[in-house]
């Protein structure tokens, strides 16, 4: 286990360094492309010249992300201690991986739509690049830190493990916050677009929900893989059961208040039609955030 983790740590660190260099390259290309579009230069020539190197760089990004996520899972299994940075990296790593596919679609759109004016897709692309960059830099910090810790640490025997339980709560908090914030921003910006179709709102909300929920779904799936061999009564120890019960009670009470507020808004202001489309995602991510935060609070409190 230690040997495997050591190998993946080193491989990921190598790929991470290459990825940071690759990000500098792709961002330089996007900047050149943006300037060509603004100055109405030869865009097609630039795309033809750089399309293969950019595609190869994106394949490298894909390998780096997969290797990084594998390393994070192995670290989670080896160190048996909760680490906020590791939980955050697991969350942002999954989002960054999903955004790699989004980048491909965005660049494809930009290469077709630039003739109609400056494409707004550039702003999403830059946001996506910032997420990739943040993930790569933080991953490098974690790998350097854990590389040293790995040399001097031995695997501890822990029969009842709580590291995945705690990390799942951290990721639940991050998923909840990102879902709530992104849905709110998207819903607020949506009416400002020129004559926006309803399907665009539905599609946007669906994509946001998918991206925000996938990291939590994956950590729960990972936890279930280990727990499926045990009886459901042994999934948690008695303190965890008690903490989950307390957080469920708080969540239940607060969810009624939250739904009441949504109902009053919808009842009083009939023009808030958008609420009829987003009430469930808002409710879902609010509950996820509250439940995870409360469980973590009660568990850490003692």
């Amino acid at each position, binding site marked *: 286990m230690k040997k495997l983790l050591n190998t993946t740590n080193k491989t990921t660190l190598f790929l991470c360094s290459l990825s940071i260099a690759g990000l500098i390259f792709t961002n330089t290309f996007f900047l050149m492309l943006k300037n060509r579009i603004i100055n109405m230069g030869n865009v097609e020539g630039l795309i033809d010249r750089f399309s293969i190197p950019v595609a190869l760089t994106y394949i490298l990004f894909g390998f780096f992300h997969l290797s990084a996520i594998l390393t994070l899972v192995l670290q989670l299994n080896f160190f048996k201690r909760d680490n906020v940075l590791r939980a955050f990296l697991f969350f942002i790593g999954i989002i960054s991986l999903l955004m790699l596919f989004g980048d491909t679609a965005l660049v494809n759109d930009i290469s077709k739509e630039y003739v109609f004016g400056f494409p707004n897709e550039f702003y999403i692309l830059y946001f996506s690049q910032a997420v990739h960059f943040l993930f790569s830099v933080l991953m490098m910090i974690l790998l350097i830190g854990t590389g040293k810790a790995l040399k001097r640490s031995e695997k501890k*025997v*822990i*029969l*009842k*493990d*709580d590291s995945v339980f705690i990390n799942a709560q951290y990721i639940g908090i991050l998923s909840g916050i990102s879902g709530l914030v992104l849905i709110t921003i998207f819903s607020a910006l949506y009416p400002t677009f020129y004559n926006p179709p309803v399907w665009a709102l539905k599609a946007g909300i669906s994509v946001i929900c998918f991206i925000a929920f996938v990291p939590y779904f994956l950590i729960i799936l990972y936890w279930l893989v280990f727990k499926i061999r045990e009886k459901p009564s042994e999934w948690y*120890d008695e*303190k965890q059961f008690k903490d989950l019960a307390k957080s469920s009670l708080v969540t239940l009470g607060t969810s009624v208040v939250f739904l009441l507020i949504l109902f009053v808004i919808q009842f009083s202001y009939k023009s808030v039609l958008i609420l009829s489309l987003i009430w469930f995602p808002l409710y879902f991510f609010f509950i996820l955030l509250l439940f995870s935060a409360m469980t973590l609070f009660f*568990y850490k409190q*003692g």
Partner: protein
Amino acid sequence: MKNKHRLKNNLRKCRFEYNEISQQQLANEVGVTRLTIHSIEKGKFNPSVLLALKIASFFKKPVEEIFYLEDYGLKEKKK
């Protein structure tokens, strides 16, 4: 008059006397997480009867030698 009680324990002392075993080792023996043992020692979490008996059995001591009730105040019963 009504007495108020709080569950106290000698878990830390018992661990010390039992070859200074760690919270994690005890947690492994009785099938809970390390944080649960830590919370019991701090008096923040009251274990179930089953867990208290498991701990007592591990230390080969009667349960009341490890866990005991402490009065922490008297309260006037309102009529």
